[in-house]
Each structure stands twice: as C-alpha cells, then as structure tokens.
C-alpha cells in the first residue's frame, strides 16, 4: 500500500537521455522502481541503462504499458512534456524540473484535472514508497526505510533530513512525497492528507511546510474539520526568513493575513496538530504519539 505509487507503477522517464534523467534512472532502478521506458524526441530506438528509449510517450504507453511518468526535461519544454504524458493516458506525472513558468504550470494542472490525472510537482524531489520499493524521484535511496509514516513536504533536502531521522528511530515511511517548491503545484497538503487518511499502512502523517502561500493554514483547517483520524506532526521552516517577494496588494488581498511561519504554526496548533520546534523534534514527537 502507500499512496499514488506502488508495485503496479510502471515508469516512463521523459528526458531520459539528459544528464539528470540518465543519472536518476540508474538510481531509481537500483532502488527497485520498474522503469519500463524512456523518451527523448529524436533518440527513439536507442537504450539507456538497458531501458528502451522512444520518441513519444504514446509508444512507451502502448509498448511498455507505462502508467507513470517522471519528467526531467528543461523548463522551456516541460509543459509540452506534461501535456504529452496526459495525452498518452499517463495518470501520475512527477515533474522534477524546476523553473517552469507559472502560466504553464497552471495550464498543465487544469488539463490534468480534466483527465483525472495527478501531477506531483513541479520542482519536486518526487515520491518514494519504501515498502514496495518504488521511487519516482531523486531523493537519496539510503535515507528511507520500510515503515508507517506518511510524509508530505514542500521542501527537498529538509525532507531527507526528516525522513532520515524517522528511519533512524525505526518507524520508516509508508510514502514520502514532495509537493514541489513552486508557488503552484499539482498537489497540496489537504489532498495528500486525504489520501493518507485512507491508507492502511500509514499510521501518522508528517507535514513539512514553509513560509509563503496558505497551504499549511488550509491543511490545519482540514485536519480540524474532518477530525483527522491519525496523528499529524508539522514543521514549518522560515521563522527567521525574510518575508518572500510581496505580490503587491493583491497577494495580501487574496490570502488575508497568512503566509508567515507564525500564522502557519498557530493554525496548526489551533487545529490540534503537533508542531515541531526543529526538524529533529519531529521524530521525537512521533515516538511519543505512536508509543504503545
């Protein structure tokens, strides 16, 4: 079990011939991920790490039954890659690429919704399910271990730190995914919380947030409203960070007075979510919550 990816996940790597694409294909294969194809327009017919490379995602789906895609193509071509995956019928798309124009992201997410597909990212480290040995992402393999904690994070390396701590105390992870570091992403905390709620393997959920946006505030509201049935532990980075670029008055108008570490932490606390002071406290709190 776990969420979004599992043993039936068959991955096509879009941009497999690039530096990052080929490097991480190797690491994903090592982890156990079923990489069934790669794409690179104009390089169809070759192989990389023993994986067949096609010109189009359509071929990867038809010939190799790929159902999940991970995208490494440069930002300028990412929108096209995502739309191609959607068109080919891919239902889970992990977008590693950073620097995608927000207009492109917005369009892709809307079209994904129309196709009932899930976009993870952009600018995400991806998703990993240690129990089923599936990693569709770029996180360091050894920091994750079989387990029961669901992690959703807006961060990359910070997530690895936290996952590692959780691995060290023996809880491990059911699924860990990065929502992506961009302002607009395919998944938010609430949607992931919903999925973890129904996942039998997940015993507790960790949310790693940061300043900016109101995803944390909405997650807090959700936890409270549905009386979330599993322990939720949150950490919010950026108490000492400068406020992000201010989006004129409009930013303040659409979000209200939210978006600082303080408003997020307060919202979590008010909703009964345990808030960790430091990333290293998360593991300690989990121990507390799950003892007995």
């Amino acid at each position: 079990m776990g969420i979004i990816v599992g043993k039936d996940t068959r991955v096509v790597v879009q941009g497999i011939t690039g530096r990052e694409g080929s490097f991480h294909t190797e690491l994903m294969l090592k982890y156990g991920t079923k990489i069934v194809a790669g794409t690179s327009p104009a390089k169809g017919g070759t192989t990389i790490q023993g994986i067949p490379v096609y010109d189009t995602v359509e071929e990867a789906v038809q010939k190799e039954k790929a159902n999940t895609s991970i995208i490494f193509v440069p930002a300028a071509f990412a929108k096209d890659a995502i739309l191609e995956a959607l068109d080919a019928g891919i239902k889970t798309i992990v977008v590693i690429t950073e620097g995608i124009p927000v207009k492109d992201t917005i369009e892709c997410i809307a079209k994904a919704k129309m196709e009932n597909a899930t976009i993870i990212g952009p600018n995400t480290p991806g998703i990993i399910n240690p129990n089923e040995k599936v990693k569709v992402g770029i996180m360091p393999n050894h920091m994750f271990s079989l387990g029961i904690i669901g992690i959703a994070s807006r961060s990359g390396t910070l997530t690895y730190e936290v996952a590692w701590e959780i691995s060290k105390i023996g809880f491990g992870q059911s699924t860990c995914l990065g929502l992506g570091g961009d302002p607009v992403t395919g998944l938010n905390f609430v949607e992931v919380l919903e999925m973890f709620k129904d996942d039998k393997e997940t015993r507790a959920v960790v949310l790693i947030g940061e300043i900016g946006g109101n995803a944390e505030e909405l997650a807090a509201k959700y936890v409270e409203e549905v009386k979330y049935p599993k322990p939720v532990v949150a950490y919010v980075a950026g108490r000492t960070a400068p406020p992000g670029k201010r989006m004129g008055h409009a930013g303040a108008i659409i979000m209200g007075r939210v978006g600082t570490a303080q408003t997020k932490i307060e919202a979590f606390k008010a909703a009964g979510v345990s808030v960790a002071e430091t990333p290293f406290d998360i593991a300690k709190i989990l121990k507390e919550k799950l003892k007995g």
Partner: protein
Amino acid sequence: MKLFEFEAKNIFQKYGIPTPKGKVVTTPKDAESAAKEIGKPVVLKSQILVAGRGKAGGIKPASNPEEAYQIASKMLGSLIKGLRVESLLVEEKLDIVDEYYASVTVDRSARSYVVLASTEGGVDIEEVAEKSPEKIVRLNVDPLYGFAEFHARKIVKKLGFGGKDLRTFSNIIYSLYKITMDYDAELVESNPLVKISDGSFVAADARIIINDDALFRHKEFSERAFLEYGEREAEARRHGLSYVDLTGNIGCLVNGAGLAMATMDLIKTFGGEPANFLDIGGGARAEIIKEGVKILLSKPDVKVVLVNILGGITRCDEVARGILEALRETGVKRPLIVRLVGTREEEGRKILEDAGINVFKDVEEAVREAVKTVRG
C-alpha cells in the same frame, strides 16, 4: 522581476489603459523641463523597485518647474529603503475624484489567475480586504476557458458601476488580464486606479511583476534583470544562487531552500542570528559553491560561515573543493563550520580535514558550534 513604474505604465498605455502625462528624468534640469512641458503641478516619483516608497518619502509634489528642480535635486541619488534613486517619473498631478483598485495575480491555492477589483482603492486596500471583504470583487479565471471581456463586465457590474464607467472600467480590467498573459506576469496591479474630474479613468499607479521563471520568453527584459536586488543579492543571482541579506552575523550556505530556512531557524533557536539566506540549489558544482562562499566572506558582518550540506544530487567533494577555492581566492580568514553528509561524504570530509577544517555530521551540533563561535 519587478518592472519600474514607468515601464509598467508604458505597457499599460500600449494596452489602452490611460496613464498620467509624464516623463522619466535622471537630472534636476530634466525634471524642471518635464514639469514645464506638462504645464501644471506635478508629482515626482522615485523609480525604485520596492513597495511603500510613498511613506518613505519617495513621492513628492511640486507646484511649479522650479520646485520640481529643487525636489529632484534632493531625491535623485538619495537612498530610499536601501535603494539608490537613479531616476524620477515626473507626472501631472491628477485631479482625483475617486480611487479604485484593480489587479490580476496568481492564486496559489486555486491554481489559477485571479482578477480583483474594488471601489475602495488606495493605500488602505489591504485593510478593506480584511474588514469589508465584500467590497472587493474577485473572479478566478478557469485556465482552460480563459477570461473574456464579459467576465470583466461582470466584475465591474458587481462593483455597482453602470453606463460609461462600466465600459471603461471593464476595458481596463480586461487589458490588465491581457498584460498578465502576454508578459507572463505574476502581478499586474493599478492602485489607485483613479477617476479624474472629467470622468475618465487613469492608472495613477502601475505595478507589474514578471514571473522570473518565464523571463526566457521575454528577452527584452533580460538586460535589466536583478535591478530590484541589493548588490550581494544581484551578484548571487548572476550565479544562479538564491540569496537574501539579513542582519545577523552567522553566514549560511545550504543546499535546498527548506533546509536553508530550517538551518536559520535553528541558529535562532540556539541563540544566534543568521546573516543571510543562501540556497545553492541542487547539484551545484565547486565553481558555484566558491562564488557562494565568496559572497558570504565579502560581508563584513559575517563572523562565522556555516555550511550545511545534505548531499543528494549535490556532491560533498564538489562542495569541499568550492569552499577551499573561495578561501584561497579571497584570503579572508573567518571561522568556518561545515556539516557535510550524503553523496561522496567521505571524499568531501577528507578534502576539508586535510585543509584543517573540522567537519560535522549532525546539523544541530554544527549550528551550536557556530553560535558558540560568534559568542566568542
């Protein structure tokens, strides 16, 4: 990337949104002749890329050309909110009857653009948003349907306008949306958008922020990037580093924005003060690391440099090499505390230890050490 007010106003004009008669000047003499040309009382507005310049003395009226000369002499070259005033926009003083608000921006949680408008324009718009949200009409744009002129009319109608105003105001809102799309903007805003005594609408202020990630599609702005940043921040961005100046004395260099912020928070938790935010991103090579360290060492306030690397794509040996090169090139001697784990950890550790630099494995330990060091 923030555009200057005058750049934003040029774009507004191109899209049919009236703006005040005005001219950009860089000398008091030009300010004087601009005022003369305009032929009535003017306002001198410092062209700096920061919000809140009005309250900081960046906007001043002048009733005649001579006064414009005097005021321009004082404003030009002065520092406002840390930024030097290089140019002024000399504009006719408008005979304002009413102040409105209109903008288009990105709604993160709705994952769409959102169009906002209100009859309560001006500096207090945020307070209006909080206290009387019903006075602000908002419409989220369906990304697959788009935003049509009639949508703009719906908004303006809801604000209570009819007749000619309905048409004029909604045309302006539609233009703001078109600008947002055509320029890949994250924000296009007019506050205040004013009605003047002859009944027409004028964008008294204009703001455009272009989505940095989309700048590759807008080469016309590539030359003038980074103007909105301080010197060190601009230098960092030139190397693709994400940097923000802060007031503490512990310089930080971290891979990953989240980890960087968490590191800063830890410094604070343990009683120290970070001197900056610096995210080197993923997979940085030695050359980039070197530039990052050099930027930290260039800041006199920095008493100690704290490097926190969790190597995934980033290789610890590259980091180690970058650090040493920076030290060699600058010759600056400051205490250096390094936490290094992950990909090629052993190689990196060896390089640094060979150079006499102590390497930590645990973040908390490293941060504690950094705080202890600055405390003497």
